[in-house]
């Protein structure tokens, strides 16, 4: 298999397979969660549970001042790499073109040099976040091998994408192939690791928020 064959394979059958596993896996995970059900709550609500659920979905994108200060590195690191990933994944012209070919519509992109800068920031932050995880007693204690696999599977696509764009180390087409392959790896493990939080956190916040709504708790 030469570079071109490899690129065609990762762009074709491998990509389709990864997407199928990703989508079917996430559907399965949501089924696994939702099919467990939830008991009826007979307590008279103090405020609207639906409003509580929606409020918590939004509110938890932010944090209160004291918590911000107490967990400074976690919060800042978390924001920066999530925003960075969002920009790199969804606002790069090449990515939008790919997504458009799959879902049929696109959206405006950021200039590639800007996205490139975000990629650098994202990689540096991911490294800082990893260092923090290794150094922080609680984070290190809670971390399982899966956490480090998840970290690597997030970092490598950004790195290979950056290297492919800048023609570093390997032939750009080979590096692009590796970039796509690394994304496929990410998609495949996504439903079976804590990467699922990207979707399930909306459910978690909803359930917690509904409970807060019933209890009339606002924060």
């Amino acid at each position, binding site marked *: 298999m030469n570079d071109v064959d490899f690129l065609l394979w990762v762009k074709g059958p491998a990509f389709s397979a990864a997407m199928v596993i990703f989508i079917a896996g996430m559907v399965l995970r949501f089924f696994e969660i939702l099919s467990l059900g939830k008991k009826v709550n007979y307590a008279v609500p103090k405020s609207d549970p639906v409003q509580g659920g929606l409020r918590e979905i939004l509110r938890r994108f932010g944090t209160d001042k004291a*918590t911000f200060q107490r967990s400074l590195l976690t919060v800042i690191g978390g924001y920066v790499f999530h925003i960075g990933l969002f920009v790199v994944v969804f606002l790069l012209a090449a990515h939008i073109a790919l997504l458009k070919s799959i879902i049929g519509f696109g959206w405006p992109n950021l200039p590639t040099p800007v996205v490139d800068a975000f990629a650098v920031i994202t990689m540096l932050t991911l490294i800082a976040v990893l260092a923090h995880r290794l150094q922080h007693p609680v984070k290190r204690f809670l971390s399982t091998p899966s956490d480090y696999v998840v970290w690597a599977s997030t970092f490598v696509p950004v790195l290979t994408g950056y290297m492919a764009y800048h023609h570093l180390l390997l032939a750009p087409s080979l590096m692009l192939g590796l970039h796509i392959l690394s994304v496929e790896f990410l998609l495949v493990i996504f439903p079976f690791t804590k990467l699922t939080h990207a979707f399930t956190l909306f459910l978690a916040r909803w359930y917690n928020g509904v*409970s807060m709504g019933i209890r009339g708790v606002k924060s």
Partner: protein
Amino acid sequence: MSSLTLERGINAFKAQIDAPMASFFSSCVSCGMCAEACLFYTENPEPRFAPIYKLEPLRRVWEQEYTLIGKLKAKLGLSKPVTDAELAEWQELVYNNCSLCGRCTLICPVGNDLTYMIRKMREGMVASGHAPEGLIGASTRAVQIGSPMGVKLPALQAQVRHVEKSTGMEVPFDKVGAEYLLMLSSMEIMNYPEYLEAVAKILTNAGKTWTLSSECFEATNSGIQIGSSDIARELVSRVVNAAEKLKVKTVISPECGHAYTALRWEGPNLIGRPYTFAAKHIVEVLDELREQGLLQTEGMEEAKLTFHDPCQLVRRGGVVQQPRNLLNMVAKNFVEMSDCGTLNWCCGAGGGVSANEDAEEVKMKAFLRKKKQLDELGVDTLVTACANCRIQLEEGLEVNQMDIPVVGLTEMIAEHLVERKGGAA
């Protein structure tokens, strides 16, 4: 409780696992922010006190039983089943080092209700025989005697006679059709009898009809704390039966945090239907009387004072503004602690910690968080609205040689009460 086994514990875990819990476990990213939110960690920073880690056995049962990947891992021998020895080890984490205060639940960035899960995990701890002796004793006394402290009706009747003598008012028992049924906690009957006197004065003066029940006067619920729905259901049913027999409109939960959680939030679900009456915390009732103009006070406290928010009132009950409205009626120099209101720090002894002898040392460590908050303020008086918080605060202040009296909010209001014309007093 002769056959408490690991198998029963695991089955109880399985019975507790629901969609919210599965969404919570699926969403955790091991960020560790729950640890920073938990006073049992901040005052005793061992990583195993991180709230999410306290749930690890339950998480594993969820993963192994209810996820495809977990089942596969179990088949391939890649995951180990939860053992009895582990649950024995976890008793310290789930009971001694958690007051179900709900702070982690509020802080978690992905939105996990960790408190909800720890409450549920305790069901499996009870079923597997890994609940603390102190809580087993309290629950047994609650079921058999009617009070976790073993307080019987004659003790209450004696207090009632004192109150009637000192106020000249009638303290009614078993009055059918009264508006309010007043529930108490044993702690109030034994340690803080001034509470009953205060409520008697306020309600009677407001022209409200109210009553005690001779069949059930205890509002606290050890079943909620130990984590046994069977016990909790039995205890809450007694309150419901008394309230329905007396046909009251409202049951007043005392100055006690978890009694409110038991009666207001868990009770209807334990009995499987809505109540025929309303359940309110005394502070909610007092604030309603204030709004209706039925609670008037005179004179102001000069002392610099602050309010300790009981967790079950603010974070788990949405009662934040009411105590402040009331305090502002009688206090000139009311100052707020840092993190006050919904994010206030626990006293360190809620959720069964105070009834658990194994937690004696830990709860005093946890108190140091409150000490820091108080040291920042330099107040003369500390006001609260939970007898359990109050006894922990008094002990903590004593141990740390801090000379700050702790006062119940209801008593403070009663001291400033203006007698109304038209009131029955």
